[in-house]
């Protein structure tokens, strides 16, 4: 099935492999060809090893021929954000600091992908250390939006979203600390799922903000997101924050749960700053649910307006400590201008980190410093409790919340880099899910007048991903947004 292979869903590819209408080597080679053809313009990949990919694919084909497939992803190419450790592969975090770092170990999610038979296709670009909302903070390259390559892919998992949108990969993994899966998914017109904090192991995910980070899939469909979640979710004894329960069957919800649901619309998400075309698309989606018999309830999240401040205090504080280990001593970039060892720190870190990372380290160091801890960090942690309580109260009334993923569609590269506060404020709709630890999904719900995708965010109760997926799936099935694809290939 050459030609149209790039935009097949995971489910379709699983079927094609199972029926042997395509081999993993063919599938992998097709995607490598696609990467060759379009990645020059998209720049989603930091690196890939063609030989290694084909070796993995061959091994998969041999397993299939012998009737011994390892799992549901056997032979499927999967891309991984360059912040998740894969043994013997680079782990750059799109930072000069880790430009030459090769991981000696596998993240738990990677072990799970390998056990499921996946072909690990390459390393996907991101904002440096996952800090950013446009993948412009990568020290390696900027990832462009496949729908309009003068625009950004979003971030920080911009490479993971753009690669799936551009047909370079059927599925990928990203990480989400304040919206880093959902926002690029919405910018690129794909599905992005941030699971409940603790559902997916963080072992091997390079930490940005430990109490907020979570790994999740970026896919073409809601169903594929469930399929990927099924593989990566579950308790990990190597992550103390991992929840010790067995995840349910995420495909069941899609088949059985058909609503109608009680859905909340938080007023605070529709205040000023929301692009009118985005607003219209979200309202249309809300109307669709209402027409389907869902009860729509106006919800108030009274501490919502504080979420940005709380988030940037907690996230930068944790980051300032998490990133202290990149110091020029053991495995990072080391400055050759340094005199003594203190100087080695100052210079290696000055050379190794980009501007946004430095800015956040400074801010995070400040809020933890002597005399300011109570006023900033401790207070932020308390208000974080209040934000979670807001959600707990909301979910006592409704099954899910419908919101925009981002206040606007993808913007032009370079357009917002000058004002960090404005950039921080654009995370408004996504960060509170990380603060509360709840799951959220972004799925395409329309296109604006320029043909740029718009994302609908649905937030759910902790550990209720099956329900969340079912709510999203019902919308997706009734629309054709996931059938539209960009054409980033240069005109012949």
């Amino acid at each position, binding site marked *: 099935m050459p030609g149209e292979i790039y935009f097949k869903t995971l489910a379709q590819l699983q079927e094609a492999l199972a029926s042997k209408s395509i081999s993993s080597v063919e599938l992998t080679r097709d995607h490598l060809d696609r990467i060759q053809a379009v990645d020059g313009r998209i720049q989603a990949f930091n690196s890939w090893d063609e030989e290694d990919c084909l070796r993995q694919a061959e091994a998969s084909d041999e397993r299939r021929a012998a009737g011994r497939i390892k799992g549901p992803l056997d032979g499927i190419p999967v891309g991984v954000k360059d912040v998740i450790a894969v043994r013997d592969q680079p782990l750059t975090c799109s930072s000069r600091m880790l430009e030459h770092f090769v991981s000696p170990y596998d993240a738990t999610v990677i072990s799970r992908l390998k056990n499921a038979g996946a072909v690990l296709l390459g390393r996907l670009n991101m904002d440096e250390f996952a800090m950013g909302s446009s993948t412009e903070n990568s020290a390696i390259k900027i990832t462009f939006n496949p729908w309009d390559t003068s625009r950004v892919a979003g971030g920080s998992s911009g490479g993971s979203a753009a690669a799936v949108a551009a047909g370079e990969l059927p599925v990928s993994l990203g990480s989400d600390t304040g919206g880093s899966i959902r926002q690029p998914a919405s910018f690129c017109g794909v599905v992005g799922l941030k699971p409940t904090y603790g559902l997916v192991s963080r072992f091997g995910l390079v930490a940005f903000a430990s109490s907020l980070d979570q790994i999740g899939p970026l896919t073409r469909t809601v169903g594929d997101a469930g399929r990927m979640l099924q593989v990566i979710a579950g308790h990990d004894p190597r992550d103390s924050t991992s929840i010790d329960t067995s995840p349910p069957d995420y495909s069941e919800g899609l088949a059985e749960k058909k609503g109608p649901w009680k859905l909340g619309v938080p007023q605070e998400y529709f205040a000023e700053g929301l692009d009118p075309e985005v607003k219209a698309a979200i309202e249309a989606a809300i109307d669709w649910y209402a027409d389907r018999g869902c009860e729509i309830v106006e919800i108030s999240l009274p501490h919502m307006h504080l979420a940005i401040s709380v988030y940037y205090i907690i996230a930068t504080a944790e980051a300032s400590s998490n990133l202290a280990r990149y110091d020029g001593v053991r495995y*990072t970039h080391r400055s050759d201008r340094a005199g*003594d060892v203190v100087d080695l720190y100052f210079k290696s*870190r000055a050379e190794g980190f980009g501007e946004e990372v430095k800015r956040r*380290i400074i801010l995070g160091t400040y809020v933890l410093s002597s005399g300011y801890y109570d006023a900033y960090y401790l207070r932020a942690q308390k*208000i974080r409790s209040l934000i979670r309580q807001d959600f707990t109260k909301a979910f006592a009334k409704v099954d899910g919340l419908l919101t925009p993923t981002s206040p606007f569609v993808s913007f032009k590269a370079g357009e917002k880099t000058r004002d960090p506060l404005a950039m921080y404020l654009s995370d408004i709709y996504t960060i509170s899910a990380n603060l509360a630890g709840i799951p959220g999904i972004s799925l395409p719900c329309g296109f604006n007048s320029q043909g740029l995708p718009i994302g609908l965010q649905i937030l759910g109760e902790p550990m209720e991903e099956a329900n969340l997926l079912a709510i999203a799936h019902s919308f997706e099935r009734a629309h054709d947004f996931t059938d539209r694809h960009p054409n980033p290939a240069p005109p012949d």
Partner: protein
Amino acid sequence: MRDPHSFDIDYVAHLARLELTSQERERFSAQLGDILQHFAQLDEVDVSSVEPMAHAFPVENVFREDKSEPGLSPERALENTPRKRKNMVQVPKVVEG
């Protein structure tokens, strides 16, 4: 309670072991001043009876049993090390203190 203008970037950069150029110093001071001003909104909330939330999920007593497993070989451990000697990480001479 606090004064955003008291932001001492040199002190903080020193704590963070970050060498800043004079432009970075100026730019960050201004930008972080704005951000801290924005954070001032948190002062309006009464948090006197609120417990701080350190973890997204309140789990307790997550342990590992005391069993040892082989780790990395010295070569593997130092494979990314920029400068090493005798299976150790080399740094400029440290004056103990």
